[in-house]
């Protein structure tokens, strides 16, 4: 059935009557990133005000593929992760076809022993609904709907936003302003910041249809399907019998013409045959890959689409934004509490511009492959596809989207190369089952020292989690080694690891982590 958009209640802002005391954190934008940011800060005991110019969740499904890492981030925001998995369509197999023949199939999570699946498909409006439900339960968070930022000023120790509401305008001061106001970011515009990158000269039709069909929960991608000659197509299942269809249209099509249902419906009929369907939502879009040079501008911090945009085919927009939340929350909370210097936020900028670059690189390469320029690009692309149907190696070159996986930050924390590569410093701590529970659930809001197959050295000042050297823990954290110590950051990133270290060495690694030392 169609999603029921319920407006959230608007309330008159106190600032309309009298100046409000300066807030700790003002978050502009109640999209997935702004909402997740508020809850993550609340997790760390930090209060925030979230304002949004609208009063409903995302119009249209937009982001539908949520990655394992994004689900792990959501899983620490109350019940959001659990609800997303329960409602979403879990999938891990993707099939890529050229004409009608399969040229390549992948299985994203071939290993067991993770709490979260590789991907679930769930419309963005559900994710936002769950985030709003959770945020409204948190005493640290105040959401103000129908409040629009129209002006911005900042000094060395705070930012001032001018906000318009149905009842008039007011000003709000905050120590920190987090701009989560989306790809067109008015905050970015008001600050006159350049948003450098590329626009790909291609147009896509994206449509959600409601249809009863027995398609398996898999990602189906076609290059040059017979039903849509010369272009590409994607079919992907969502809950509520909704299917996402993407059709490449070509740069020379007229978006105003293509937007009309009488154009869209026959195109979809060619994909789904004579099955009955209802058009739920559609949009025509072009791809862009851009990012801000820096995500930190004094007291204004950018996160999510306001900081970086990618083309959708690697599902790296929303997923990448949630990793911004993860990298910023614990650091900003420490700065607000006075436990870490403001300069430590440079590490957020360093890590997430690095992450954004990786997402942009992957997403640009996919787009290049899907929409080759005429001439040699097209020639190589077509020959890769031709080979891929016949010889195995060419399948590795077929690129219909390298789906979102977290990057490994370039950390300088101690490493012991005898331990498994996938758990090296800068990586997300791999999950593992611990009896009925999961390792990631046992990591808290604080840094943790994992002592695996051994005791922690005496005098360690961070919380210690001792784990037996067995099963998935052994495989993912020890490899051939007998024992190890892992320092895990509050965002579940491995900060440093040793087979043996004394308390002073570990204390220094903990300090380096809080300082965001390079």
């Amino acid at each position, binding site marked *: 059935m169609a999603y029921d958009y319920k407006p959230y209640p608007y309330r008159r802002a106190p600032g309309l009557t009298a100046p409000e005391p300066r807030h700790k954190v003002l978050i502009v934008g109640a999209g997935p990133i702004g909402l997740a940011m508020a809850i993550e800060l609340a997790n760390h005991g930090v209060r925030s005000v979230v304002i949004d110019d609208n009063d409903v969740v995302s119009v249209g499904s937009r982001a539908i593929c949520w990655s394992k890492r994004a689900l792990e981030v959501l899983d620490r925001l109350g019940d959001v992760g659990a609800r997303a998995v329960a409602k979403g369509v879990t999938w891990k197999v993707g099939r890529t076809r050229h004409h009608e023949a399969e040229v390549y199939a992948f299985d994203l999570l071939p290993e067991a022993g993770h709490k979260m699946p590789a991907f679930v498909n769930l419309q963005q409006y559900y994710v936002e609904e769950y985030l709003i439900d959770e945020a409204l339960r948190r005493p640290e968070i105040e959401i103000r709907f129908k409040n629009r930022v129209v002006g911005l000023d900042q000094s060395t120790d705070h930012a001032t936003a001018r906000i318009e509401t149905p009842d008039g305008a007011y000003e709000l001061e905050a120590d920190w302003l987090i701009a989560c106001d989306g790809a067109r970011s008015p905050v970015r515009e008001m600050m006159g910041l350049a948003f450098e990158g590329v626009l790909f000269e291609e147009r896509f039709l994206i449509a959600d249809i409601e249809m009863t069909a027995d398609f398996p929960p898999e990602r189906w991608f076609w290059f040059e399907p017979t039903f849509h000659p010369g272009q590409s197509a994607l079919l992907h299942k969502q809950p509520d019998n909704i299917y996402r269809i993407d059709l490449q249209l070509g740069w020379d099509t007229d978006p105003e013409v293509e937007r009309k249902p009488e154009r869209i419906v026959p195109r979809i009929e060619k994909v789904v045959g004579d099955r009955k369907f209802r058009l739920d939502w559609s949009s025509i879009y072009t791809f862009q890959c851009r990012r801000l040079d820096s995500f930190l501008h004094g007291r204004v911090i950018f996160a999510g689409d306001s900081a970086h945009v990618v083309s959708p085919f690697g599902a790296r927009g929303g997923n990448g934004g949630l990793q911004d939340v993860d990298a910023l929350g614990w650091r900003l909370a420490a700065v607000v509490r006075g436990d870490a210097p403001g300069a430590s936020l440079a590490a957020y900028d360093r890590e997430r511009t690095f992450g954004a670059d990786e997402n942009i690189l992957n997403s640009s390469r996919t787009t290049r492959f899907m929409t080759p320029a005429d001439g040699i690009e097209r*020639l*190589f692309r*077509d*020959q*890769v596809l*031709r*080979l891929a149907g016949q*010889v195995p*190696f*060419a399948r590795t*070159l077929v690129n219909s989207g390298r789906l979102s996986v977290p990057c490994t930050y370039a950390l300088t924390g101690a490493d012991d190369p005898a331990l498994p590569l996938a758990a090296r410093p800068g990586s997300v701590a791999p999950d593992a089952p611990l009896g009925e529970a999961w390792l990631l659930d046992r990591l808290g809001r604080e840094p943790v020292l994992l002592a695996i197959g051994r005791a922690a050295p005496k005098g360690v000042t961070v919380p210690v989690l001792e784990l037996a050297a067995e099963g998935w823990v052994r495989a993912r954290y020890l490899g051939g080694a007998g024992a190890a110590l892992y320092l895990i950051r509050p965002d579940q990133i491995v900060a440093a690891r040793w087979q043996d270290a004394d308390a002073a060495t570990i204390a220094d690694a903990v300090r380096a982590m809080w300082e965001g030392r390079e």
Partner: protein
Amino acid sequence: MSLTLQPNFQDADGFYAALLATHKGLSEAESAALNARLILILANHVGEKATLDEALKAARATG
């Protein structure tokens, strides 16, 4: 240096003749497509990134 630009063919004349024979009877477009496939096949066989990077550079530099 992992890419050799020194003579390395077992039978240089034989390879050259075979290359031309492989293209025999193809249109210009078909030949271009065959060349593209051939590059991809050979590149995968080489595999090693450093060697491939050097080969790309050498090809560009000698043009």
